[in-house]
């Protein structure tokens, strides 16, 4: 399966522009293997032909499918655990105290993938915020149509629900369908999933109706972007947060952007970011 240098450069530039995802030459193998199912599905003979078809219609379904195929949607319920401990013991108590009981709490899962992150936030809220089902609203956004469709369906495999999720939460908040588990309507009503591109200037337009946000999860996605793009993404997010709001990145990801805007808060040796 050959690909000329020119076509590789084109696809890599297209992906950068469309998604912020950096695909350098050392990732060429990844690009090839991720495109194989698309070549079969769209009956395309070669990577060069794929590149040419994308070029001819950068907003068409094939171009979207190429971007979707390059996203890594791996995720887990209660991934890394500490963000949820921080919500329960630090962030929720602080917000409930400062806002007073009854006021809406807006949360954004900014690379929501298949929805596990948003659901884990909702489950944590149900355990630690009074009247969470009425007060807490969670927006999940992602660029991947496939991941969004999965999140909207809210149906998880036996394998997925057994990693990270306590069984007591599973039996209480999910309904069994064969060997799968569907998130219950009460929890589902707290969640909304929408398509949004973190590297687009139109981001605010999509999320603003659901904000401003008290808490933003931006986890395990900055790693795919250039350093400059990471800064721009952080600044776009900050523009949609309340003063004093919390940003939770991946354990090794840093809130770049305008550094002076963020106060670093240490929780269990991990860094959280508070908007000044």
């Amino acid at each position, binding site marked *: 399966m050959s690909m000329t240098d020119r076509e590789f450069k084109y696809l890599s530039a297209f992906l950068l522009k469309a998604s912020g995802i950096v695909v350098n030459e050392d990732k060429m193998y990844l690009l090839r293997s991720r495109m194989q199912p698309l070549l079969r599905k769209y009956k395309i003979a070669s990577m060069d032909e794929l590149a040419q078809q994308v070029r001819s219609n950068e907003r068409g379904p094939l171009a979207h499918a190429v971007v979707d195929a390059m996203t890594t949607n791996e995720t887990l319920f209660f991934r890394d*655990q500490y963000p949820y401990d921080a919500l329960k013991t630090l962030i929720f108590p602080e917000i409930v105290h400062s806002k007073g009981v009854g006021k809406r709490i807006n949360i954004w899962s900014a690379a929501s993938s298949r929805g596990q992150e948003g659901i884990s936030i909702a489950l944590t809220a149900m355990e630690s915020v009074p009247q969470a089902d009425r007060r807490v609203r969670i927006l999940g956004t992602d660029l991947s149509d496939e991941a969004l469709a999965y999140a909207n369906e809210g149906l998880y495999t*036996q*394998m997925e629900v*057994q*990693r*990270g999720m306590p*069984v007591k939460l599973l*039996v209480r908040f999910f309904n069994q369908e064969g060997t799968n588990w569907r998130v219950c309507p009460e929890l589902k009503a707290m969640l909304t999933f929408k398509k949004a591109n973190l590297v687009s200037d139109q981001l605010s337009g999509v999320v603003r109706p659901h904000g401003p946000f008290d808490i933003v999860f931006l986890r395990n996605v900055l790693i795919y972007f250039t350093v400059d793009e990471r800064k721009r993404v952080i600044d776009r997010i900050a523009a949609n947060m309340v003063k004093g709001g919390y940003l939770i990145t991946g354990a090794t990801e840093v809130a770049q952007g305008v550094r002076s805007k963020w106060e670093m808060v240490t929780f269990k040796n991990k860094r959280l970011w508070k908007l000044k």
Partner: protein
Amino acid sequence: MKALVVDDAKVVRVTLGRIMKQIGYEVLEAADGAQALEQMEANPDTAVVMLDWNMPVMNGYDFLVELRGRPEHGSDPKVIMVTTETGMGQMLKALAAGADEYIMKPFDKDMVVSKMEILGLEVAEG
């Protein structure tokens, strides 16, 4: 730290036992609930029981009820059901009888580690 692996299928005792050793436990075995009770009498310091449901002689559920009824153990050890009984009704029944976690077979190491961490049980690296 001791882990008691209870299953009538040898292959499960071996694979689950291997995982428990890898994460730092001394592994005890039993092939049914009656043997498991004997192991608990001989090893009251057992930290966790990995418990199958369907077994001859005494099944896992009856063992669990018996174990939780014995005052000398209090709420120790932690009990993780590891079973093909995956109906919601069975799960609720085991939880009500004092099971702490539940693994629906098939299992893998990540799943076992995840459940151990949820229960605050020690997990050694490697």
